[in-house]
């Protein structure tokens, strides 16, 4: 067991190192000089003023040392939890920008992913043995899942938000409200949250349901299922075994979904003007904000690795074959 996890951890550490390094490299290959852009915005005319400001910003952002040292400083910063200062929202530190955006993104995605996974699997398994459902309802989700998400989201914002006026579109809570613990504020928050949530939920739900349906049908046709029913086991029991087996790939899928949680929110947040991490990514790219981009990507990398790690553990718990494989020497 320890060996299994030891090996896994080593792989994770290595992945983390490489991902973070690439993460550091990519923004630096982007065109445009962020310090120059910042100084330019200041509109200083005298060369002395420009030079003074360049020097100040360069040292503040650590651009005044050799590249290898910048790289080391970057790692030092990560270990200290200091991700630097944002260029875009100068002089706000990257960490506080990210912390401000994270609750919104997670609040949107975690319920959407978990609920759609849970409901989708239930529904898919159920549909697999109900001809009516299989023929009538599931095709709707084939269409939904195949629809480009961007388009679906815009359509929803337009139809439910603008035309029907059921839900507000844009920003996490109304501009006229003071954030506080009150019924007014909470209902407002929820009504702003609902549309983006629904759009994510619907699309993901269809995906899970379709996957589950196919898996269950496949499992029900497997030899062990036939053998079990020929032994006289009740259909309910057979289905339960089939469901458990069909669930395994879905768990992997869930892990991947949870990992890329942030990336998945970019389009949603832009369409619904919901200013979480995804929105921040776009802004950071537009403004060549190295530090903010690095910070967010770091967050994504950690998310993916953590999710994978959790799934490794869950696998051990739910799949006896993994447990067996771990025990024997290989």
């Amino acid at each position, binding site marked *: 067991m320890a060996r299994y996890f030891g090996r896994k951890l080593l792989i994770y550490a290595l992945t983390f190192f490489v991902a973070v390094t690439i993460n550091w490299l990519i923004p630096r290959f982007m065109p445009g000089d962020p310090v120059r852009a910042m100084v330019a915005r200041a509109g200083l005319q005298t060369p002395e003023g420009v030079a003074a400001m360049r020097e100040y910003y360069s040292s503040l952002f650590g651009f005044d040392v050799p590249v290898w040292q910048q790289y080391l400083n970057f790692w030092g910063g990560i270990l200290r939890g200091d991700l630097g200062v944002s260029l875009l929202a100068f002089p706000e530190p990257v960490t506080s920008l990210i912390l401000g955006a994270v609750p919104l993104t997670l609040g949107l995605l975690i319920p959407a992913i978990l609920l759609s996974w849970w409901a989708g699997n239930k529904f898919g398994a159920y549909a697999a043995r109900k001809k009516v459902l299989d023929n009538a309802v599931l095709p709707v989700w084939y269409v939904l899942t195949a629809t480009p998400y961007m388009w679906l989201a815009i359509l929803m914002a337009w139809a439910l938000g603008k035309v029907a006026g059921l839900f507000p579109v844009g920003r996490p809570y109304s501009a006229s409200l003071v*954030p506080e613990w009150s019924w007014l504020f909470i209902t407002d*928050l929820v009504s702003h949250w609902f549309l983006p949530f629904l759009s994510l939920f619907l699309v993901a739900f269809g995906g899970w349901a379709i996957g589950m349906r196919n898996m269950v049908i496949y499992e029900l046709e497997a030899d062990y299922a036939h053998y079990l029913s020929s032994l006289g086991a009740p259909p309910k029991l057979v289905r339960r075994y089939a469901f458990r087996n069909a669930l395994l790939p879905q768990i992997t899928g869930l892990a991947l979904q949870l990992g890329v949680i942030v990336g998945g929110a970019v389009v949603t947040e832009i369409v619904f003007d919901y200013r979480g991490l995804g929105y921040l990514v776009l802004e950071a790219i537009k403004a060549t904000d190295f530090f903010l981009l690095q910070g967010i990507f770091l967050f994504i990398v950690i998310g993916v690795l953590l999710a994978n790690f959790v799934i490794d553990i869950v696998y051990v718990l739910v799949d006896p074959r993994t447990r067996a494989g771990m025990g024997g020497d290989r």
Partner: protein
Amino acid sequence: MRNRWRYLVLLLSVGLAAACTGVDGGEGGDGEGGGSYPRAQTLFTSGTQWGAPVNWNPIMNWTYATGTVGLVYETLFLHDPLTGEFEPWLAESGDWTNDNTYEVTLREELTWTDGEPITAEDVVFTVNLGEMKSVPYNELWKFLDSAEAVDERTARFTFSEPRYQQWANWVYFSPIVPKHLWEDRSEKDVTAGANENPVGSGPYKYEAHDQDRQVWVKNDDWWGKEALGLDVKPRYVVDLVNSSNEAALSQLLAGEIDLSNNFLPGIADLVKGGYKLHTYFSQAPYMLAANTTWMVPNTTRAPLNDPAFRRALANSVDVGKIVNSVYGQIVSPADPTGLLPIWDEYIDKAQVDRLGYSFDTNRAKSLLAQAGYRDTNGDGLVENKDGSPIELTLATPSGWTDWNESARVIAEGAKAAGINLTSETPADTVVQDIRESGDFDLILDNQRQMDNTPWRYLEYVFGLPIRESQTTVNYGRYENQQAWDLVNQLDATKIDDRAGMKAVISRLHRIQLTELPMIPLWYNGLWSQASNSVWTNWPADSGDAPRLVPTMWRGYLQRGAIKMLAELRPAEQQ
């Protein structure tokens, strides 16, 4: 199943709400409206802030949270570009006591919002900050000798070389900061600090901010109520961070935004459509002209280093098409001098008639032929005089759709005249880079806003010396010492010497119109769309409406827009 669902969603939502309020908690402040800003007492604005408000530093005049200067920090004077008048604000009076000395007297009993009195020491301190190299008005100290407080309310400035125009610009544009809170700050804090919890003197105070908004609350003790008889009407001013212009438009139509200073193409149709929308002019161009969009040729590169070629290019641009089809008539074509309509009196019309240019493809062709540019390889496009092909690009920042589209029109016009010009749309940071380093053929630029003096525009066109990096002026690197001397002569002309100013400006325009170092194309509008659903009496050019610049843009509150807030009236409730 469905029912169970609903509860689950509700449960999770509440949990989420809890998480979010947990984070934002404590920021709410003492909003009196029981958790919300009462709609009838709140002014919602948008169109200035493109990222979360993160600093309230009046010295960082390119990035401070909307309203920092104007609502909180104030200037000695106000300058109204529509009337051309200076109006004493913090100052009671300001005069040149002799050619080299300027004295300013503050009003009586001014206080900062923390209760400390505002004195001449604060004014002197603020001017002294300019000695720091990275303060935007560092230039001041090249001709300013000393600044001293004569008494409690009077400050005296002695100039080694009086530049009346620039100084007049400073006294209305630059906010005064409290010495007692700023004197211990390092240069870094002064020019790059966030200055949280700003303490100013103006009609509003900081209330709250979030990723997507900045909230100001009325300062009931504002000095201007008595001294000026001005009472700002909105209790709260909420400035919303822009996401997109489209979003701003839909919120404006829904009456959720009262004043949108976003660029909203197509607004011309909506104004007439009964949406309770208001613009400064009720017909084209709807907006006041805020700045001039110039096409900047790189005058160090052939063939753009040839004035004759630049003139042919200027003649090839179909500005009318840009105004009508790209902008839907919310802009207007620029005068060949590029001076804004507010400076009309400074334009020597006869000279413009003689030397100006207008869209005329055939004229452009003949100018090219006269100057010796011929099509030697028969592709319909002219070649350089030495026979090498001409390949010019016009760079506009990607995503600036109106400029991208205008650039396409310009390129089309140039091609029709035989000039091989293509439009390019790199990222805006790249455009900024090449603009400064001079690594471009042609770009568009519109950085200079309406102001107290045409000197600001002429300095922008002719500014010397050429540096390795051109940060604010003369991006085309046009060198003409004679013109630059005239610009400085203009700077040293007293602001009430209109005849003297006109004479110098006319000479400068003669150079500008014959040499065409930059090609003015159209006047960008002071984008301003207001909704009459909650507030009325917005500035307009007709009726009893106030004649003021209707915008929250940085730098405009001290150009008179602050008075708009006192002129607003609550809409009658149906």
